[in-house]
């Protein structure tokens, strides 16, 4: 019984934490620490009381009311302490009871936009989003980003302090400001997804990114880019089971066992993407999702529609040009028209000095050189790529590729 109740509370925590924190930020007039502390108090009270007293009919209402009452207690206690130093006007806050879960306002969108305010640095945005929207503890977030708990605690502390001191508003930006502000939210969600995607130990970040993007899509049904982002995550996420072998080594898209791809997730991603594209407000995430869909729909690697992927990259380069897009486009050209067509494109990026430290640039260069038979130069580029990567799995993968450039004992290429 107690275990069942604990599971139930854990289930409510997943979505309930951010709902309650958001409501409490509003209630406390922007005191994020007090909001988190009282939300924590409420869940602790539930863990204590529900196993014996039973689970209330409206658990979220119970938790929010409890959090509110705890916050009022804490404010009263603080003002009593202050009153002994100076005559303070007692803060009048009446504990207010929510009787139904449906009465609790959903301010998670306000919370997302505030956490991802561009006046906060990106690291702070990411940390704050995880802490207040997923309820991951400071220690868990610190582990995910390989910094000490103390460093992460400082980062969160500074971010919350800036929100209070600089008066960063707790709200969804007005419609005219959304085109500037929504990309920041999407960027943070995508960064979380990618951070979790590359590392099996960080799967949690991926799951949370998808969950938060679902919330964003639900709360902003008219923003095609939010839909595009979810489609992109689902289509990429579907390939996860096929991405590494039993030794933890990376398997390229080309060599992946497509039977391992999660077909339900692909189907959902495609449905969401189609609905988004039908709104005719294309954006970078919808295009990237469309590219992922081209891969997801190909029954095997040779039947991939590379010319279509090149076209999509052309479109992406028009609306969101950057060196990574140029590189990915070059890879697609290499598949659609052969390595000879792609080599000058990659060499132009190398010459520009962009992405000089990015191992994928050198690995791509090496692959193309290998395919045109310039094995010595290819080996050199693989070595540059190996030196640039920080991931052990990538390094092992590149060493295997490097071995392909060495003449085999029988002299066959």
């Amino acid at each position, binding site marked *: 019984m107690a275990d069942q109740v604990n599971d139930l509370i854990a289930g409510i925590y997943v979505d309930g934490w951010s709902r309650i924190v958001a409501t409490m930020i509003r209630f406390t007039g922007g005191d994020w620490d007090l909001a988190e502390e009282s939300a924590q108090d409420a869940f602790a009270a539930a863990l204590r009381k529900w196993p014996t007293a039973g689970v209330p009919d409206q658990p979220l209402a119970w938790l929010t009311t409890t959090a509110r009452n705890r916050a009022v207690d804490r404010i009263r206690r603080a003002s009593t302490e202050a009153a002994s130093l100076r005559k303070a006007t007692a803060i009048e806050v009446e504990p207010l009871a929510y009787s139904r879960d449906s009465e609790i306002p959903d301010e998670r969108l306000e919370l997302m936009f505030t956490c991802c*305010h561009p*006046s906060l640095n990106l690291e702070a945005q990411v940390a704050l989003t995880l802490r207040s929207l997923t309820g991951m503890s400071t220690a868990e977030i610190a582990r995910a980003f390989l910094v000490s708990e103390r460093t992460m605690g400082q980062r969160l502390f500074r971010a919350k302090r800036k929100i209070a*001191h*600089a*008066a*960063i*508003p707790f709200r969804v*930006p007005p419609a005219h*400001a959304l085109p500037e502000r929504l990309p920041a939210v999407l960027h943070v969600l995508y960064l979380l997804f990618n951070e979790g995607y590359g590392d099996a130990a960080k799967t949690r970040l991926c799951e949370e990114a998808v969950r938060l993007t679902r919330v964003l899509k639900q709360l902003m049904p008219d923003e095609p880019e939010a839909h595009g982002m979810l489609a992109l995550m689902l289509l990429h996420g579907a390939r996860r089971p096929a991405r590494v072998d039993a030794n933890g080594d990376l398997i390229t898209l080309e060599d992946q066992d497509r039977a391992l791809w999660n077909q339900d997730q692909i189907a959902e991603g495609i449905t969401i993407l189609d609905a988004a594209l039908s709104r005719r407000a294309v954006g970078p995430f919808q295009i990237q999702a469309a590219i992922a869909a081209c891969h997801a729909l190909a029954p095997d690697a040779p039947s991939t529609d590379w010319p279509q992927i090149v076209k999509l990259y052309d479109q992406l380069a028009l609306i969101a040009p950057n060196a990574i897009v140029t590189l990915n486009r070059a890879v697609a050209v290499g598949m659609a028209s052969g390595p000879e067509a792609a080599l000058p494109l990659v060499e132009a990026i190398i010459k520009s000095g962009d992405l000089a430290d990015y191992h994928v640039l050198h690995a791509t260069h090496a692959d193309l050189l290998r395919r045109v038979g310039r094995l010595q130069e290819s080996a050199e580029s693989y070595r540059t790529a190996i030196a640039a990567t920080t991931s052990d799995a990538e390094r092992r993968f590149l060493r295997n590729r490097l071995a392909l450039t060495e003449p085999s004992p029988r002299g066959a290429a």
Partner: protein
Amino acid sequence: MKYLMLVCTDPDLKPGEDEGAPDVEDWVTEMDAKGIRIMGERTRPADDATTVRVRNREVLLTDGPHAETKDLMVGFDVLECADLDEAIAVASKHPMAWGGAIELRPFWPFEG
């Protein structure tokens, strides 16, 4: 909420990057009329600055700016805004945001 708006030049500005910058007089007129701009002045360049430090009760003067501000600051305004978003909107309409940089510093409120 009050903000100090430090108006700075940007030595790295490339020609043409500030094209279409609004007129400063229009900005002052608009923000004064809205009650957003409480005061503001241009300041003389760093050459005319004097930096004052008191160390061990002794007044130490330096001819020139405090090292960190260099010669970037050319003026300031004091804004009264609802929140940071409004202050950002106001600062982005100032010509020096287009051709230089504007730093927004929230006031430390009086804690009586």
